[in-house]
Structures are given as structure tokens and as C-alpha cells.
């Protein structure tokens, strides 16, 4: 594979910032990347890796559309630098299903009409996954609390909560 950079010529020499080489795992796959320190993790995911399921919705770390899992814990990828992924495991919505066709969370969102425009949905599902990994039998209140860092404009959250509880039921049934 070849990577091509823009060559801005000698006048750019003074402005050059050393790129950093990082190694990380994304959805189970090992990757190496060369990034500017200021590159946000969300942009590495979306532009560098072409995984556009993680969305950018705001610029003040409020909306949570960019939520991914870092070593299994939820993080707003817009508020991490890509260089901070070095040595860590990143999970995005594209890896949610794993080997299966769909993860129960994805099924739940479809069954319970937990999405309309779909823009907040990947972030919601990743935050919900983190919740269910820690608490497989959450109450409605637990779900609302766990998702209070993710904004949705379309659904009014009621069906999102039902979707997560549907998934929790299925995951517990599957054992």
C-alpha cells in the first residue's frame, strides 16, 4: 500500500510538525498509522480508516455522536487525540456485530424503533454496549443515566430506552 502526502515544497519546511507513528487495534484489526498530533481520534476513524459510522455532531463534547469504546470503556472520540490511541483497542459501530449478523443492540434498535434519522444511533449503541457490559440487567433509570451523555433530536429517547432493554433481555437469554 502506498500513502501519498501533499508536498508543499521547501517553504513549508519551517512549519513541518513531526508525524507520530501509532499502533492500535480497531474492531479487532491491528493497524499502524502516521498522524499529526493534533488529529482528533474521530477524524482518524472517519477519514484515516474510512469508518464513517462514528459521527461528529458538535464541537463542545456534548452530543456523544462520536462515542466509541476505548479498551471497552466509552469515550467521545472527538475529545481524544488520535495519538492517544497508541497501544489501545478501539471499537466502533462497524465492529459491534462481530461475527454475527447483528448485535442484539442493533436488533433492539430496529425492533423498538429506536432511531429515526440514525445520526446519534452509533454513539447511542456504543454507550449502551458499555452499560450492558457492566450491568446486564439495567433498569430504565440505569439506561437513561448511562445514555445521558448522548443527545438525540428525533426520538424523544423513550424508544431508545426500550431498544436497550430489549437487547439486555436478549443478551441475558442468550446467556
Amino acid at each position, binding site marked *: 500500500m502506498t500513502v501519498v502526502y501533499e508536498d508543499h515544497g521547501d517553504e513549508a519546511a519551517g512549519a513541518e510538525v513531526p508525524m507520530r507513528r501509532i499502533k492500535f487495534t480497531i474492531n479487532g484489526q491491528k493497524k499502524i498509522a502516521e498522524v499529526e498530533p493534533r488529529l*482528533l481520534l474521530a477524524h482518524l476513524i472517519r477519514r484515516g480508516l474510512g469508518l464513517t459510522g462514528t459521527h461528529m455532531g458538535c464541537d463542545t463534547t456534548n452530543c456523544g455522536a462520536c462515542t466509541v469504546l476505548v479498551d471497552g470503556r*466509552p469515550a467521545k472520540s*472527538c475529545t481524544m487525540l488520535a495519538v492517544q490511541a497508541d497501544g489501545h483497542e478501539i471499537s466502533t459501530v462497524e465492529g459491534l456485530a462481530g461475527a454475527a449478523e447483528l448485535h442484539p443492540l442493533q436488533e433492539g434498535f430496529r425492533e423498538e424503533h429506536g432511531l429515526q434519522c440514525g445520526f446519534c444511533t452509533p454513539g447511542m449503541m456504543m454507550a449502551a454496549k458499555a452499560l450492558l457490559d457492566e450491568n446486564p440487567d439495567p433498569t430504565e433509570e440505569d439506561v437513561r443515566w448511562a445514555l445521558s451523555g448522548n443527545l438525540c433530536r428525533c426520538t424523544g429517547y423513550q424508544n431508545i430506552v426500550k431498544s436497550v432493554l430489549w437487547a439486555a433481555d436478549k443478551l441475558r437469554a442468550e446467556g
Partner: protein
Amino acid sequence: MYPSRFNYEAPRSLDEAIALLHDGGDYAKVLAGGQSLVPLMKLRFASPDLIVDINNVPGLDYHRADPDGTLRIGALCRHATLERSDLLKGSQPTMAAAAPLIADPIVRTRGTLVGSLCHADPQGDWASVVTALGGSVVAQGPAGRRTIPLAGFVTGPFENVLEPDEIAVEAVIPAAQGTRSGGYLKLERRVGDFATVGVAIAVETKGDTVTRAGIGLTGVGGSTIAATEAAQALTGQPLTAESIGRAADLAAAAARPRTDHRGSAEYKRHMVRTFVVRILSRGAVEERAA
């Protein structure tokens, strides 16, 4: 939403980190949780030349009680850890009340208490809590360690006394001499909102008598306010409706709120008073073993 350029280092030891800060030039910042710093950089309100990321420095993610009860919180201890902490729930009511109210659940997985204290946002919640508890920040630099009481740590909005080559490595909450009680109430319009008003109260009692009290106020001044007169008005006597009312009045008087889109100064002062009364009157004040 795009930070300006900077150099970046990710040292693997404190000494390395300190050396990098020492050589780092005029404007270097330490990155721990990043949940305050990175947003500022994205808005270009902060444009450091060098970022020293301490997330790879081992041994900083602890929180523990010393045998004498002193609580130590390492620089990489995340808000979420404190939110889930049985130690806090069992022995630190003020901290346990505040932990779930910091930002939102996802930000809490990365943000740190020590980072929050260093950030010195006047609307920061932990600063009021640590103020009420009479806590300190431990800084490490080329010359070694020093302990800085929080009261003298913040010099203004987003300004602290750390030298450019010092890193805050720990927050310390002194051991209680009596039975701890207290709480934190925050008026936020929704999860993740900054406090319109926040009140942290930490009380220690021996029998019925209050032996120590601390009150910290969030969001009602250019920086966290230690309502010392109000706290003193509680000590040396039992908590009664009268003493609580007096402390509430004094705390409201100590507040220096501004009228803005979050409310009038009068309202904010009133809320300080209301929160003081509510924290101290809540059923019997919640008791925790010393």
C-alpha cells in the same frame, strides 16, 4: 473544532514528564483526561506548543485511604472510578454526592479529579468539594514534591500556582477527626450543564457536636468560594435549624454571583442558601463511619 499545531510527547515516567515540561518552552500543557483541555484546544481558546501526555505514566490511577484515613487520589484516577467507588460511598459523603454530577457519564470515563482541580474552572465541581474538605494538591517538579492547600492553589479563573515544570500528581483529603457527613447539591438544567449554583458541605461531628465544617461554593464567583465564616458558624455546637439557617445566610453573603442568562444574582444567592439548608437538614444528616 480543529486544534492548532503542537508538539506531543507521551513519557512513560514522571521524571521524564517533568524533564519535558522543564525543557518544553513557554507554553506546555499536561494532558491527563483531556476532557477540559482538548475542548479548549478545539475552540482554540488554548493553543499550547507542547502537550505532555501523562496517560502512560504508571501508578497514578489510584484512590485509596491511608491507615489514618487520609484519602489520596492519583492524577489519573477517573471521575467514573470515583463514582463507582465503595470507598467513597462508605466514607466520603460529600465526594460521593458530587462524583455522579461531574459532566456526563462518558466524559467521566476519561476526566480526572486532579485534572479538574488544575483546570481551575470557576464552575468546576470538584474544587468546591475539595475546598469543603480542606484538601490539598501534591505537585512534583525537578526539585521534588510539595503539598499545596487548595485554598492557595487557584489564583484566578483557569489559573493555578503550579510552576511550568511541575505536575500535580495527587489530591489529598485529610483524615476526618469525627464522623463525616455532608453532600453536594448542584443546580444544573440538564446533565452535563455547568453549575448555575453548586454547594459542597463537609461536616465532622463528635457525638452531636460539629467539630469541623467546610463549605465550598461553585459558580457564584470568579473562582470557587470557600464560605469560611459560614462553616465556622456551624462548629462547636450541634446542628440545629437555627445554626443551619445562620450558616446558610452567611454562605449566601459570601457568594459573589453575577446576573446572567442563568439567573439573577439574587436567585443564585437564594439557591446557595437553599442548598445549604437542604444538605444540612436532609433527614438526619447522612452519617458515615470515620
